[in-house]
């Protein structure tokens, strides 16, 4: 069982890894860039799926249980 902070950092690293890998793949693999599925370039489909995957991963993370102390509630910071 890992802590919530470590979970968030690992997920953020995973997001960066996906973004970098999907960005580089069509440049480093020309055959991949030329392939098509139903007339749509596979490289474009993969970028689409990657962004949807990043979205779903981000949405799947539950909020922190306690939501930490809540600074700045009424009155604080007012002059």
């Amino acid at each position: 069982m890992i802590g919530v902070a470590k979970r968030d950092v690992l997920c953020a690293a995973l997001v960066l890894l996906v973004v970098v890998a999907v960005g580089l793949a069509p440049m480093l693999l020309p055959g991949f860039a030329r392939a098509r599925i139903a007339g749509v370039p596979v490289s474009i489909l993969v970028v689409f799926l990657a962004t949807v995957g990043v979205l779903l991963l981000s949405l799947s993370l539950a909020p922190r249980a306690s939501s930490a102390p809540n600074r700045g509630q009424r009155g604080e910071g007012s002059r």
Partner: protein
Amino acid sequence: VSIAGREWAFAAFFAVIVLAFALAWRAARRGSSSESFFVAGRRIGAKMNALALLGEMSAASIMGTAALAFSYGFDALYSVLGVVGGWALILILLAERLRAKGNRTLGDVLSARFEGSGVRLLLAVSALGVAIPHTFSQFVAAGVLVKGLFGLSYESGVIIFGVLTAVCVILGGMLGTTWIQIVKALLLISCLAVILVLTLASYHFDLATIFASAAAVHPAGEAVLRPGLLMHGPFDALSFVLTMGLGAAGLPHILSRYFTVPDPRQARQSAALALSGVVLINWAVVLMGFAAIGLIAGRSGYALEGIQLVGGENMAFLHLAHYLAGDVFFGLLCGVVLMTVLAAVSAVVLSAATTLIVDFYRAVVQPAGKASDVLLSRIAIALVCLIAGIFALLSRQSNIGLLAAIAHAFAASVNFPLLVLTLYWPGLTRRGALLGGAVGFITALGALILGPLVWCDMLGFAAPIFPNHYPTLVSVPAAFLAAWLGSVRARDARALDF
């Protein structure tokens, strides 16, 4: 633009001015307490905050992304990848914790952990390094848009927008800015939905036809569907993606929106809703850019020759709307685009003024002064608008790409590393934070000056010393490394409990 289109655009522009004044006036009547002015009373709900966050998307990002897809095809997807990644990082790493730890500015997050004003001041300098080029570039864009759409002079556009922005933000503060952003987001999403449906209908809802037409019409042929027209290698692409992503995740005017919700949970909910919207809007705009190649490239009235568009490549989005929906819709869309500029620049100006007063004036110059922060911020808002307006009037030929690169480079190289390390690494010391921020700032600045945008385009040298337009691939790791080295070697000033 036809006469009918121009008349509708003028009417929509006038409506935007009246609407913005009305919203700002209504917000001002709600009260001008410090909490109301700086953080909208922390009463903005998650859904409304998500809409306001979508309202932060500038006209440049909508029209620019469509233009990238129109001119360079696949390479526009690097922008989408970066932006989606950046907003995902905000959701995962920052939104909830910023709301829990911060008060009015990003500097509050750091000052809660580190003694003294040094780190806060460093972040303030970086925040201003983001805000001033951003405001300046929005005023330049406003002047160019007003000139192109209405035939008024460039100077008139800058002055109208400068005064409009200053008055709206001075009157309405964060609450008025939030309302303007919400209305703008709703209008923009409605317009995008109409254009997207018309675009898909013109291709019989067949995606393959859109890409086949683009490859058939674009001078680059099939290459438009592959990377390489804009990015000249993996280093270029990676640097661009990281700048767009980490830059978005470090922009103060976006992050400060999370201070306006009642609690951290709603901050996270608003970030999740905003990310969903960012994914949808970016893909819709990219699809329109690809579709525009087949529809308006080479067409009389829209293109001069091939993909050379009347008014420049940034007009691809507006030309497509005019081609598909005619004069009336085009006119209304112009009004929405101008409201987009106003919403984006208002948030940046407010963020800059708040930083000036809270992180600089109160923290360094006069901590115990009697003047209220709201009054001082209103003066700062007028000052920021005046300075950015004068810059915009004096240098109409400014490279908007360079200004955007500066803003994103500082946000990615200073704000993002400092915030992430402060929030997640207990071992970060004050010395490490100072060293990391300073190295990020200096590396980003140095690489920008030695890079193609300044070294070649402005100073006239044949070849750049730093090969890339964006310094992020070097400056962000340098900032993290320096912060780590500064912390592990520090023997004094350990961080306070956080």
